């Protein structure tokens, strides 16, 4: 025991336990536990609401273990167990209070149902002991996870998150794969039956083991596989790579047929966000110009297409153009707007630039709303009767056909971004991001470089907006709120500033997932905020960072071993 006393830090343990408890109380009182309890991760066994609480306890335990001076070993585990138990005590105090007094006048979500969930439906005294016991047990797990070697810890974490993800997306997976005979049998076994949603217990265990073991195996063998691949002659390496592209291409082509109508619709709206993300990534990620009014170009693209193609209604003009004719005009107008915005902000940096661009975005939205422009663009009633486009005789009027338009746009944007990133212009954007004065002193034309960044970004956003117009068939000013700009910015930050694959990861996480979990839409912003705060603390470079950014943030770790050798 004496060694434990020497290294055990009661204050930190208590502190962490209380912080964890506070987070738990907050989650419960905003109603997330109650609301999320309606969905199961593991059918009949583990609800989403409980997953949230368990996760909080687990993280509390994990951090408590990592806080101990000697870190790994007995004090860490004791600390983890104690901290998570404290968390559970806080939660049981909450449950007791809610059970004893009616707090619903002030705290709407302090409902009897919350007590029921927190006490495992066992009533107040008994359930509370179970709660504290469960907290301590999860703390033990957190402590143990902390002790595990890096490799195994990562595999365990990945396995657990995969179980959560599959459980969450059960309905979608089952619906979309139901058409395949053999697969649907396996799915029936893997997922809960009947009305209960989520994985079955056996399914959850199998998923965890397969994912964790697969990750471990891959991590130990990846260098070997890579070496093998590099040993292959140039020619077969190239053909292997083309084979990969070919498979990817086939998947992309057949995806809407597999996914069905609703899911394709989700993919489409994610795709529009990714398209915008690729554009903003050039402005913010490459050139470092913080643009908060990005939605303006989206609106300009959509409204241009709307005005040029609509065929009847109360508006002054009914040009009734073909979409494919209107599209280049819309993109050009967006580019023009990008330049118009760019000129006055040439000398602005950082916060000032953010404020001015934010204002620009609002100006465009308010103009669209205004009575002044009502005869031409419809004011708050927007533009209706935007016809679906035709392509080679095929009418593009449902998600599954529109999907191909969006994919084509995204591939084009991807190609352009990638080529630009590796070009002379891409280099000068990066130099500009690092230091404007020095970039100028290297011979970079500040004006042209900045304007090109704004214009390219605006083009992608305008393209995305144009497609939105025909996707919806009607457009209203309220579709172009400030929140869209913030969403796009957030997806870039989460994916990794300046990283092209990061845009796709961020898009799936911040545009795709919320679309799939619509029933929890109330908590969307709360989760966004929490996610961003946690990201900045734990993984500031984003989920899929650009190579240089990663180098910068993790250089210390990477360089040390190299120097030790030298």
């Amino acid at each position, binding site marked *: 025991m004496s060694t434990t006393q020497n290294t055990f830090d009661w204050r930190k343990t208590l502190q962490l336990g209380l912080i964890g408890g506070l987070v738990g109380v907050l989650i419960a009182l905003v109603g997330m536990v109650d609301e999320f309890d309606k969905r199961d991760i593991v059918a009949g066994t583990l609800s989403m609401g409980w997953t949230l609480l368990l996760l909080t306890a687990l993280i509390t335990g994990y951090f408590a273990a990592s806080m101990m001076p000697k870190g790994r070993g007995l004090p860490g585990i004791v600390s983890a167990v104690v901290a998570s138990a404290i968390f559970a005590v806080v939660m049981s105090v909450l449950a007791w209070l809610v059970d004893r007094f009616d707090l619903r006048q002030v705290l709407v979500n302090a409902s009897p149902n919350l007590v029921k969930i927190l006490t495992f439906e066992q009533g107040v005294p008994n359930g509370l002991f179970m709660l504290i016991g469960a907290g301590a047990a999860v703390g033990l797990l957190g402590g143990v996870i902390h002790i595990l070697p890096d490799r195994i810890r990562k595999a365990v974490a990945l396995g657990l998150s995969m179980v959560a993800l599959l459980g969450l997306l059960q309905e979608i997976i089952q619906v979309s794969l139901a058409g395949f005979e053999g697969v649907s049998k396996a799915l029936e076994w893997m997922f809960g039956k009947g009305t209960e949603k989520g994985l079955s217990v056996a399914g959850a265990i199998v998923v965890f083991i397969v994912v964790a073991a697969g990750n471990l195996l891959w991590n130990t063998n990846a260098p070997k596989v890579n070496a093998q691949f590099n040993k292959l002659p140039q020619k077969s390496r190239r053909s292997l790579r083309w084979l990969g592209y070919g498979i990817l291409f086939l998947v992309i082509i057949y995806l809407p047929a597999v996914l069905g109508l609703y899911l394709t619709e989700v993919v489409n709206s994610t795709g529009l966000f990714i398209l915008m993300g690729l554009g903003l990534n050039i402005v913010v990620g490459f050139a470092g110009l913080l643009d908060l009014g990005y939605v303006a170009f989206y609106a300009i693209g959509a409204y241009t297409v709307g005005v040029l193609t609509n065929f009847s209604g109360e508006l002054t003009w009914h040009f009734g153009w073909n979409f494919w004719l209107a599209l280049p005009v819309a993109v050009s107008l967006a580019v023009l707007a990008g330049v118009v915005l760019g000129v006055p902000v040439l000398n602005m940096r950082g916060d000032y630039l953010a404020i001015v661009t934010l204002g620009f975005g609002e100006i465009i939205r308010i103009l669209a709303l205004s009575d002044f422009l009502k005869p031409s663009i419809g004011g708050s009633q927007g533009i209706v009767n935007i016809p679906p486009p035709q392509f080679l005789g095929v009418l593009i009027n449902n998600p599954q056909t529109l999907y191909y338009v969006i994919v084509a746009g995204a591939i084009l944007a991807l190609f352009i971004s990638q080529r630009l990133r590796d070009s002379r212009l891409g280099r000068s954007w990066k*130099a500009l*991001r690092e*230091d404007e004065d020095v970039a100028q*002193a*290297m*011979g*970079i034309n*500040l004006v042209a470089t900045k304007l090109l960044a704004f214009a390219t970004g605006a083009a992608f956003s305008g393209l995305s907006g144009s497609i939105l117009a025909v996707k919806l068939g009607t457009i209203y000013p309220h579709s172009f709120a400030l929140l869209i700009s913030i969403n796009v910015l957030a997806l870039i930050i989460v994916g990794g500033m300046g990283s092209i694959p990061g845009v796709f990861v961020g898009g799936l996480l911040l545009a795709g997932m919320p679309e799939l979990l619509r029933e929890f839409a109330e908590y969307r912003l709360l989760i966004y905020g929490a996610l961003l705060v946690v990201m900045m603390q734990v993984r500031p470079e984003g989920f899929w960072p650009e190579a*240089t950014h990663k*180098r910068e943030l993790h250089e210390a770790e990477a360089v040390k071993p190299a120097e030790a050798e030298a």
Partner: protein
Amino acid sequence: MSLLSIENIHTYYGNIHALKGISLTIEKGEIVTLIGGNGAGKTTTLRTISGLLKPREGAVRLNGEDLSKYKAHEIVYKGISMVPEGRGVFARLTVTENLEMGAYSLKDPKGISSNMERVFTLFPRLKERRTQVAGTLSGGEQQMLATGRALMANPSILLMDEPSMGLAPVLVELIFDTIQQINKEGTTVLLVEQNALMALGIASRGYVLQTGQIVLSDTAVNLKSNPTVQKAYLGVE
């Protein structure tokens, strides 16, 4: 005709009159130093020459041509390169990428790679670190990188702003040796320094700047023995 001549320039920061009529000339092949205390206007003079600031009055002439009609980035193409104060390396780019940015004004890939070889011969340390991110280099290495980057543009005149700032004495000597070598290879140098003793040691002529005006100009040897300079800048009682 002088390579670079500055005629009576007045530069302002908003309403602050920073340079009050400065004139100086630099001949081809010289090392000229500009010394003075904090806030004397040394950096402002360099920024005015490189076009980052525009003078309200007066002219900067390169080979007799007035540079006032050119923007900062165009002046690089005329053959003036700057090593900015505090080094100003592109922290998130690698050493090689930084050097490539320095050659932004050049179009010919062969010339660029031979320039890079030259920089690597001048600073072997940079060659060892060429894949490293510039932000993680030591102060001395960053100074080498900033100098190398400026040389990548094949300048006829190199403007150096306080290369000794924040460096250990050993490194300062190394940097100054390199400046002399660069000069021997044919590049004219305008050196701004607070470390007057070192600067006058390698320069042929010097100007002393005080509150935006030139108060003294002479050969380096004479300035070193000038009692006013000794008292104010060389710490001799």
